[in-house]
Structures are given as structure tokens and as C-alpha cells.
């Protein structure tokens, strides 16, 4: 589906897992299939529908890697 509650700056992600650990919905994980230019496996959102846009991930991310959006009424 098209709506993405969180946008992640994967190129800046260092795979520290702080967001993964804090996410109450457990919908963040490191993408082992990718190594970004910094040499890390970046985080990816596994389930956009489950994400509640609580923005806890954004608050803990040391790289300020998240933008979080409210789920439109429409959806």
C-alpha cells in the first residue's frame, strides 16, 4: 500500500538498533541484504500498516533518520 508512516534516511542509518529496540510495534529491522555507503545494514520498516506513527523511533535515533507522518483519515 502506498502510505508510509515513517520515512527513513537509510543512507545515514548506522544500524545501531536503538529504533528497532524501542519500536512498540516491532516493525523495524535491519536489512541484512543491504550495506549502505557507510558500511552498515540500514533499518527498514517491515509493516507499514502496523506502525502507529508513535514517533518513538524518531526520538531515539542518533542520526535523526526518521520523518513520521500521521495516518490520513482517508486510509
Amino acid at each position, binding site marked *: 500500500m502506498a502510505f508510509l508512516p515513517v520515512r527513513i534516511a537509510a543512507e545515514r542509518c548506522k544500524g545501531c538498533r536503538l529504533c528497532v529496540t524501542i519500536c512498540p510495534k516491532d516493525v523495524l529491522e535491519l536489512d541484512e541484504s543491504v*550495506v549502505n*555507503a*557507510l*558500511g552498515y545494514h540500514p533499518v527498514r520498516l517491515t509493516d507499514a500498516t502496523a506502525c502507529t506513527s508513535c514517533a518513538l523511533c524518531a526520538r531515539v535515533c542518533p542520526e535523526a533518520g526518521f520523518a513520521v507522518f500521521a495516518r490520513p483519515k482517508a486510509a
Partner: protein
Amino acid sequence: MEQGVILAGFGGQGLLFAGHVLARAALAEGRAVSWMPSYGPEMRGGTASCTVIVADRPIGSPIVDRAAAAVVLTPPALARFEPMLVPGGLLVVNETLIEALPTRTDIEVLGLPCTALAREAGDDRLVSVVALGGLLARRPIVERASVRDALAELLGPSRFEVLAADLAALDAGIERGLVGGLASPAAVPAK
């Protein structure tokens, strides 16, 4: 005869350790050696590299402007160190992380999926040991036995499994180094 070897990539890829292993092995074989790391915060997160020189007489500059061989585990490392090889020098390229191809045609290139092989051997961070194996397959600067002893000495008596994993990684590198890889850029389909 003096051989300068550069190992380069990201911090955390075990490059300094692999270089140290090579240097110890050479020392055990009675050669003159020097090991010079990149150091300081630049190692943190960013790039890391070290230079190992193995020679038959006292070593002059511990820093080389002409390398006999280089291991590059990342794209920036390839860009930075390919030009430093002497003609006919060996370039070991970590194909897992590097898509771009070396541009020089006067050098020998060995492409290995180092990271992949390392993971098979049990730990991403063995990537440098895999690459070292590949390098030794093409440039037998030191005996495998010396490398094994150096690994054993550096890891210390208590760490069997680690040693096993390292040796597995080393042998995977040697094996693939003897057979696989690109004989030379010529052999690669031009993009």
C-alpha cells in the same frame, strides 16, 4: 626484495588484525617487517587501512607509495589504493560490497565475495582474513602454517572456536583465490 601490502576498507572489518597476522607470520619466518595503521577517529565509523611491508633487508619507509599488493573491501578503498599498485601488482577486490571494476589494465585483479565468504565462515568481521587468504593464494608471501601460528598466537590459547572460524575464513580465501576470481580486467565483460 621488499613487498608492500595495503589492506583497506571500513573500520570493524578486522583489517588491522589481518595485517597484524601477516606481519607476525613474516616475522616468524625471519623476514623484516613493519605494520602501519591508519589511526584515530577516522577509524571510527569511517575508513580504516594498514600497510604491511615484508622484506629481506632493513625496511626504509614504513609508508609505501608503491604497493606490491592491495586488499580493498569497499568502494572508497578501491578508488584510493588502486593507483598505488606497481605494474603487475595484485589487487584483491571484495565483490560483495564493490560493484565498480578496477580501471587499470596493468595489474592482476582477484575478485572475491569476501563478505559473503566471511558470513559463511561464521562472522562478517572475518572478511579481512578471507581476503588475506585470497592474497596469499596469489602472492605466497608467507606460508599458511606461519599464518596459522600467528593467528593462534594473537588469539591466545583459550579461544578455539574463534581460531577455527578464522582458519576456515583463511582457507576459504585461499581456495577461492587459487581457482576463482578475475584473471585480469580484460576477462571482465566491459559495461
